[in-house]
């Protein structure tokens, strides 16, 4: 067992973990932050994407110990300080960018880093960026639309209005 200390959603946490504890297990089982989901075992689906020091990381692909000293944000930390939905979260609701909700945390986390690095992405860039996040419900249409809208772009001309 090793002790890990990090900041998660702005709060300092310190826990004893074994060396092989995955970040997903640490968040879900130790911190009870169950918004980070596990949808596969080959680091393909992206349901577990979190931010580690501001970058998107698949939490299933790192050990908790690797985040020692890091600043971690999960879906539970994405809303505004007053509890209202952030711009990206609100766009997902406004444009029906989610159905069952299981892939949604990872989608929101990925969308946030996309827009941080590329504030006005094209449709093509959004689709390329989301390759690592699988959704089985929405057919991606409304996810892509929500992200374009969250970036401040006009989406009224998109098919199927």
């Amino acid at each position: 067992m090793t002790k890990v200390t990090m900041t998660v959603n702005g709060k300092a946490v310190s826990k004893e973990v074994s060396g092989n504890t995955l970040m997903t297990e640490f968040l879900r089982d130790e911190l009870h932050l169950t918004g980070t989901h596990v949808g596969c075992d080959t680091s393909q689906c992206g349901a577990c994407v979190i931010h580690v020091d501001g970058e998107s990381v698949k939490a299933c692909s790192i050990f908790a110990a690797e985040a020692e000293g890091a600043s971690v944000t999960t879906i539970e930390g994405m809303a505004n300080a007053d509890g209202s939905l952030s711009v990206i979260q609100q766009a997902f609701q406004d444009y029906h960018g989610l159905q069952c909700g299981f892939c949604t945390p990872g989608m929101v986390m990925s969308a946030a880093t996309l827009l941080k690095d590329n504030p006005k992405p094209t449709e093509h860039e959004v689709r390329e960026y989301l390759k690592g996040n699988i959704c089985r419900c929405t057919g991606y249409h409304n996810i892509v639309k929500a992200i374009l809208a969250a970036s401040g772009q006009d989406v009224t001309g998109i098919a199927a209005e």
Partner: protein
Amino acid sequence: MPKDHGIGASQKRREDVRFLTGTGQYTDDISTYGQTYCVFLRSDVAHGTITGLDASEAEAMPGVVRIFTGKDFEGIGGLPCGWEVTDKNGKPMKEPAHPVLAQGKVRHVGDPIAAVVAESLEEARNAAEAIVYDIDELPAVVDMKAALQAGATKVHDDLDDNLCYDWQFGSDQAAIDEAFSKAAHVTTLELINNRLVANPMEPRVALGEYNRANDESTLYTTSQNPHVIRLLMGAFVLGIPEHKLRVVAPDVGGGFGTKIFHYAEEAFVTFASRQINRPVKWTSTRSEAFMSDAHGRDHVTKIELALDADNNFIGLRTDTLANMGAYLSTFSSSVPTWLHGTLMAGNYKTPAIQVNVKAVFTNTVPVDAYRGAGRPEATFQLERLVDKAARELGVDPIALRRQNFIDSFPYATPVAVEYDTGDYTATMDKLEEMIDRAGFEARRKESEANGKLRGLGINCYIEACGIAPSNLVGQLGARAGLYDAATVRVNATGSISVMVGAHSHGQGHETAFPQVVAEMLGIDESMIDIVHGDTSKIPFGMGTYGSRSLAVCGSAMVRATEKIINKAKKIAGHLLEASDADIELKDGQFTVAGTDKSVAWGDVTLAAYVPHNYPLEDIEPGLEETAFYDPANFTYPSGAYACELELDPETGRVTIERFAAADDFGNVVNPMIVEGQVHGGLAQGIGQALLESCVYDENGQLLSASYMDYAMPRADDLPFYLVDHSCATPCTHNPLGVKGCGEAGAIGSPPAVVNAVIDALHSGGYTHVDHVDMPVSPHRVWKAMQG
């Protein structure tokens, strides 16, 4: 102006807030005090006899609570099949035992042999790896044609052969023979409907808990229909009466059919928790899901269409082999028969139709309903065939379809169903308007200038949703009723909880269902909540599958709300000293007709629960009503779809450029949700057509067992879709006039894609190609081009 509340409004979904903030509660998010963890030891061979199984060393490992094997399940019921199909000779289908844990033999890769229950997941995993076992491997039966040959290895020793049933349905032989003998032209096509894995993003989870104090068991599970699981597991597997068994399906991360069925793992954790008197939790890995979730499709079909000299369809004949896998999953037997054969008329007035289906056991994972279930298989073969016929006859594929459309309703097909409404010309007109067909040739030229081929594929579909009525499906072999139920509980202050049998796992019932009740009562939607997913809270309804929720459960909700209104009017009549026949309800206000005397909704509900001034001699206090609704018929959504794509002749790669869907869903409650359902269905249908394939090798090893090997559609594989549902012919037999929209996209889109691929190839001179099997991979296209 679009409506901003009630029926027809695109209300934003209230459930989104919890999903967007990580506060949803999926089954794996639930952990209970004293919980243990379960890991299954699964067969790594497709077929074999277990000659040795020794768990003693593993059982002594740290943290192990107990290890269970097949011996623990001797004398305990197996997993039941919910539909008994009768074959063409009047004999019942063969129904082999389906044990919870293997009884001496394994029959597919993933078949559970033993289960370890331990204090932690890691300890359970370690112990599962330490179980010593020997399997004497037997030849595996994988290919359906080989499975039916004389002398083939049998999947089940106690059966005569691997044929589950040989089913025939539709017009009599003489009518079919006559149609084909007088045909001016016959078009024939052989095709495969590829095996798929449903892959909801949430893997299955089951958590069993036993309360010795009152002898009650609770199962938390990723199910689309908790009451069905309670009935099947309680009555047929474990012998637990309903009042001692609670099944909870909380937030469920997608279903698509594969979470309808009762699975061994559910029965196991419930059984084991009673044995060890502690909660037992199993969480599927994705790898496990590939080899234990029921698969979908997997049909091999030969289909023939007879046309007269004027290109009228006069006869249709099909021969299908349908893979059942190693065991009969819950509704597996009904998929290639009653959910497939009955749809073979499609949108056309073909007078003679005969459907032949042989269902086959193989050493593969059981196959059952997956989004569309039988109807995509019917639509794909029919719409590919009609396209081929048009090409052979040199006529326009749209014109050929239009000429043969059913155009008067109700219409009784030769395959036993009666379409109540529809307007296939209207949806085709709408589609042509949406796709700018006139501009296609210019777009094709532009593609050609870039070295690409461009294809346009069009097709129709018809679907049957809300499978019913119970007395009919009972005659056809269903072992369950197919009604649904709703309880409307009005509280003293006027707020409402509606307990429904349907289960929402992405469909947005929590938002759409209150729109209906609010519209009927004239009160604000925020006063109404939907309760679903817990058998201890909801009435006995059959859950969500087959695009039935609104058409069946929604109808039950309407009926219960009507009862509420009737009773509330009596109370209002008393309060207003008027006859209840004179009371009108509008905008949440009860008024005596023709007067300004009125009481508000909240006054009436309060009177019902504080009945100081109340007609106690005539009516009971309280305001709560339940209705069960058993539909008179299926509903029949229909539509026309178009796919426009580019094909790179250098590589065989296909790129979807445009996809349009014109659907007739009858009345629509929440257009935003309906469009979302179509989008998702289209992605799964396009995924089937271009990407997805579940592949076994000749030894029954599952080759496509992870997201590295099974091509799930990703954002960059798909376009924006153009969808429309303005052509609405309301259902005639349910109170909302709704039809169902959940599966249409997955049913209608595969033939559009393949038709477009063939169109592209022909435009490039590859006229020898009349079919490419799905998934239409670059390799398959390139091979077809080479002849």
